């Protein structure tokens, strides 16, 4: 914190009011309602409300569809993080390696970041449609690809659709991370280690750890929440609900099924998952990585 500060005075309330007001009304109020929904049950006509302890939670744990969504969400975030991280790093290392055209490469690689997930989904649709989808036919010729029926194939479809734009985000952050590494460190390492491949993994990559872990969180958040638009415009959960993320399932249960109790309980479960990941990030990972 600053050593020199303004003393507490009335103008601070003026500066705090807009954001605090918005957060209290449009964020805290709904969160309180989420908890109320999760621990109560509405009667069929929506008049009465009854406190039911953890019934809504027990109900979702009894639901096999919840575990299918859980499994898909975990696999999906893991694969997206791995694929987009690896490709983003590969591109960033190479962009950092060239003498000429660095800024042109940067421009040509970051623009997909700006495209909405739902728009990416609509586009992916065209490449995976049975009628004229190029990738559909390519994969179909290779191994009989059919995402309408095969769970594995629908995973492939969503992984390709979900990774495409996220490569850009990984590329930008890795490139910035690489450029922040001090030249002298790398120059010293060249003297010690002749193999450039080993030099990368023993010197450069450990120095990129803060960026890597930041991106892991960014990618997991993306796979959890932002992929809603992709799924809703591509598989819509097909085949038989196998490709629904937890967010997608909660939305469907609340919207189509009008089961706000279950949607609330599912939201709280997800808040817990996000909280655990965040604590893990702060406690475990932040303590173990190197900063320059």
């Amino acid at each position, binding site marked *: 914190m600053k050593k020199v500060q303004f003393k507490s005075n009335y103008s601070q309330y003026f500066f705090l009011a807009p954001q605090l007001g918005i957060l209290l009304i449009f964020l805290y109020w709904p969160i309180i309602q989420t908890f109320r929904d999760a621990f109560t049950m509405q009667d069929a006509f929506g008049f009465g409300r009854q406190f039911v302890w953890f019934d809504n939670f027990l109900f979702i744990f009894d639901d096999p569809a919840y575990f299918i969504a859980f499994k898909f969400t975990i696999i999906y975030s893991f694969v997206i993080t791995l694929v987009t991280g690896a490709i983003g790093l590969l591109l960033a290392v190479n962009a950092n390696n060239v003498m000429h055209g660095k800024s042109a490469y940067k421009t040509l690689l970051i623009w997909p970041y700006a495209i909405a997930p739902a728009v990416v989904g609509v*586009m992916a649709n065209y490449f995976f449609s049975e009628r004229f989808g190029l990738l559909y036919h390519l994969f179909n010729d290779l191994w009989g690809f059919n995402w309408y029926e095969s769970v594995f194939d629908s995973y492939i479809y969503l992984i390709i659709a979900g990774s495409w734009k996220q490569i850009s985000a990984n590329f930008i952050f890795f490139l910035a991370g690489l450029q922040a590494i001090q030249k002298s460190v790398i*120059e010293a390492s060249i003297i010690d280690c002749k193999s450039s491949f080993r030099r990368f993994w023993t010197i450069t990559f450990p120095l990129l750890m803060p960026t890597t872990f930041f991106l892991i969180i960014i990618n997991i958040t993306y796979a959890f929440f932002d992929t809603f638009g992709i799924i809703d415009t591509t598989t819509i959960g097909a085949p038989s609900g196998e490709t629904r993320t937890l967010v997608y399932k909660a939305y469907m249960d609340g919207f189509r099924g009008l089961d706000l109790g279950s949607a609330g309980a599912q939201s709280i479960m997800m808040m817990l998952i996000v909280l655990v990941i965040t604590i893990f990030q702060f406690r475990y990972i932040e303590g173990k990585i190197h900063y320059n």
Partner: protein
Amino acid sequence: MIRYFSSNFSHLILLIGIFIMIIPVWLIFASSTHTALIINTQGLQFFLGDKFLENYTKVLLYEGGFFKEITVLKMFLNSFLMATGVAFLSVISSLMTAYVLVYFRVKYATLLFWIIFITILVPLELRIFPTYSVMSTLNLVNSYWGLIIPISASAIATLFFRQFYKTIPDELLESAKLDGANTWRFFIDFLVPLSKTMIVAMFIFMFVFGYNQYLWPILVTSSEQYWTVVMGLKMMSGSIVNKFAFVIMSMIPPVLIIIVLQKYFIKGIFQDK
């Protein structure tokens, strides 16, 4: 220059990367300039056709929705209003909050810090139905404020502004105080001009974030008049080439902003001067 491998190899990898990024969009764009008949019989096209003007003007005036209450042109206007509103509201409110967090000796500072930043862990998707019910209580369903405010309820920009203010030397406030600046003058005359790059970066970030919203506009706009571009895409019926044209047009605003203001965006996010 530190090399890991030959520069030619790097160029090759980067070109493959660019190819993967550009080719899907190019195929859709090229196909959007043909007739539907060609697409339906021959599939996606690599070369440009001659129906560019015809297909694109048709889309702009296309009436969407069940009641035909909205044109694509109006959807673009709605998206623009929503994105600009989100960007303005969140940037201004975040700028002010971060100011208090860094420059004021506040009672309960830690509590205030947590009240604001814990919200980053609870994205809109996790409280979507209760947010809808709050909006309907406040009579904000089917309105521009209804589209804008819940998306602006985010402390992400606050976090960035706070980090940025902390890098500003203490001497700035000392000298401003000597000049007799009060809290308002210091904010407007010193802090805001200094944060220009950061403000532009956060504006771009929140504009793209607002423009790209999909789930929230679907829920909060039962009236077709408030439909936005990104949600309108799925609702659009019509011939395949018009859909292609709509997809291409929907990408243009955010992509253009990122490309044109790229320098500010990257400078702000990574805070390199």
